[in-house]
């Protein structure tokens, strides 16, 4: 009965109730929209980084990470590669030989890491090939061994495609070595720091130049990102002497972004709930003050305070119960729609690119947020009408009836 009266009461002032309902729904929608966009951005940054340069997993010799010496190559390379090739989870493997080198052209000098790669294999692991402007991923060349440098480095060296450049370094026994390469293509990824530091040459060219066989790094990409950590454990138990890191370990900032996200979202939810609470307190307080006489009458004829209290609590529960699904459902539709179609951010593409983002954003919303927000909305609704409800209990029936 009380529940029924409460439900009917909220429709007495339809406009006010709808304003509150829509405000709550918008709050939920806005909050979830921000959360999903932010999640989408962070995921996009992650995926970008994984795709262009981090990969899912990287294997190194433990000594290589410690000393970075030229001859600290992966000593079980053949076994590891065989194992990886057999695994159904693995999508691509790319061994790399990495040499810190001084790079020099007629127009300038710089420091760079020469990455000796197998273009065929590298294609399966990163999308570096797609980032090359001329579409020559170390595949077409004449006498001089080919090199790919970034746009950034090219500018610094005043180099172009076909420019000859010279790389020099000291090998593992202290002998200075110089190699001549010809720029065959220029790449640019969304990470300008990475771009500046890396150049790519053919694996066998670098092996010949250094007289080092094998590789320093094996980059691995799996079919499913979800399986990364578990597969890492698997590899560690198989090859305990290797240093095996997942993308979270290699680029911890990408993972921190997730943690930051959680914090920001929590703050956001708190703000939404506070706004919601203010809205409800206000409305219910008005609803109580406006009905003073009626509430006084109810208490006079024998409705006890507990029932009066619950009647008012139920009124705001109903408001929240109508607004909650409304907000959640509209969010669900929007997130699903834009999750498929994407949100076009090309107007800001230039700026986004420099921080590792692309121009189409796909919002992502973890289901748990729907649950969390539903629970929070209801709890907030109940909490915030306690004050107005208590206000109703303080009414003195004789007083309220007198002021007719």
């Amino acid at each position, binding site marked *: 009965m009380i529940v029924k009266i409460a439900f009917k009461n909220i429709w007495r002032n339809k406009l006010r109730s709808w304003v509150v309902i829509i405000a709550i729904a918008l709050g939920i929608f806005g909050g979830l929209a921000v959360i999903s966009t932010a999640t989408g951005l962070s995921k996009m940054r992650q995926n970008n980084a994984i795709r262009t340069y981090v990969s899912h997993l990287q294997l190194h010799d433990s000594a290589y990470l410690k000393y970075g010496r030229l001859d600290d190559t992966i000593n079980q390379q053949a076994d590891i590669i065989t194992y990886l090739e057999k695994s159904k989870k693995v999508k691509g493997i790319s061994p790399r030989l990495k040499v810190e080198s001084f790079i020099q052209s007629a127009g300038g000098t710089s420091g760079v890491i020469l990455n000796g790669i197998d273009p065929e294999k590298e294609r399966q692991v990163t999308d570096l090939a797609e980032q090359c402007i001329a579409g020559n991923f170390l595949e077409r060349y004449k006498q001089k061994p080919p090199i790919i440098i970034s746009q950034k480095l090219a500018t610094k060296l005043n180099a172009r495609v076909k420019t000859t450049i010279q790389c020099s370094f000291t090998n593992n026994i202290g002998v200075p070595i110089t190699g001549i390469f010809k720029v065959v293509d220029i790449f640019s990824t969304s990470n300008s720091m990475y771009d500046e530091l890396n150049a790519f040459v053919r694996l066998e060219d670098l092996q010949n130049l250094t007289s080092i066989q094998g590789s320093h790094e094996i980059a691995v990409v799996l079919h499913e990102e979800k399986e990364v950590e578990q597969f890492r454990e698997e590899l560690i138990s198989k090859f305990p002497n290797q240093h095996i890191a997942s993308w979270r370990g290699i680029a911890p900032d990408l993972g921190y972004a997730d943690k930051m996200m959680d914090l920001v979202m929590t703050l956001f939810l708190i703000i939404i709930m506070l706004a919601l609470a203010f809205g409800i307190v206000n409305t219910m307080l008005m609803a109580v003050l406006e009905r003073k006489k009626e509430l006084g009458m109810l208490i006079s004829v024998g*409705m006890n305070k507990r029932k009066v209290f619950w009647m008012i609590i139920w009124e705001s529960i109903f408001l929240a119960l109508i607004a909650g699904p409304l907000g959640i459902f509209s969010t669900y539709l929007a997130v699903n729609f834009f999750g498929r179609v994407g949100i076009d951010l090309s107007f800001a593409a230039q700026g986004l690119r420099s921080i590792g983002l692309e121009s189409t954003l796909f919002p992502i919303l973890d289901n748990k947020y729907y649950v969390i927000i539903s629970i929070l909305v209801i709890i907030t609704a109940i909490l915030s009408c306690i004050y107005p409800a208590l206000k109703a209990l303080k009414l003195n029936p*004789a007083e309220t009836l007198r002021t007719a």
Partner: protein
Amino acid sequence: MIKVTHVTKTYDDGKVRVEALRGINVEIKNGEFTAIVGPSGSGKTTLLNIIGGLDTPTEGNVIIGETNIALLSENQLIDFRLNHIGFVFQSYNLIPVLTAKENVEFLMLLQNKSEAERDERTTKLLKAVGLEDQINKKPNEMSGGQQQRVAVARALASKPDFILADEPTANLDSASTANLLDIMYRLNQEENMTFVFSTHDQRVIDRAKRVITVEDGKILSDIYT
């Protein structure tokens, strides 16, 4: 039976002291049809509120049946009102979102009466006040007189010991006033329901069987007609 002894009521907000009642002694027996009259500000409402347990006396006792309601806590008083006293106010009697039937049923729901009993009694009472064809109307779809009749039916629904009505006809035209009084009078005659009401209206006073005149917070006269 209502027994009011040595009741005084002083309103004191710190600045102004108003002695609304100054030593009231009165006994109202079951089955009476009593009007409380007096000029504005004489203390009629205050007296009815104290009898009805809506307000507490500064001094004195109010005994209803066996209970000294001056000794009850606030929550006990609410329950006491629900089960022993029927109220008809001048206005704001009904719950606007409920129909006539639901308004009458309301107190029985608070009393946890069974659905069968509620239905039967609601129908009977609405018939007794001549509103059997208005049961599904909301208060704002009824006239002032009809609303007051629903209020009388509602007051009776909880099977109270007596009904208190503070100026129940103040907002009614003369036809509705006569009609409401007829109904109250008939309920008094046929069901032996006790009515205590305050009024300014001479036509209402004329129908009363006992007229208590209050002035300045004291009983000036008490006449059985």
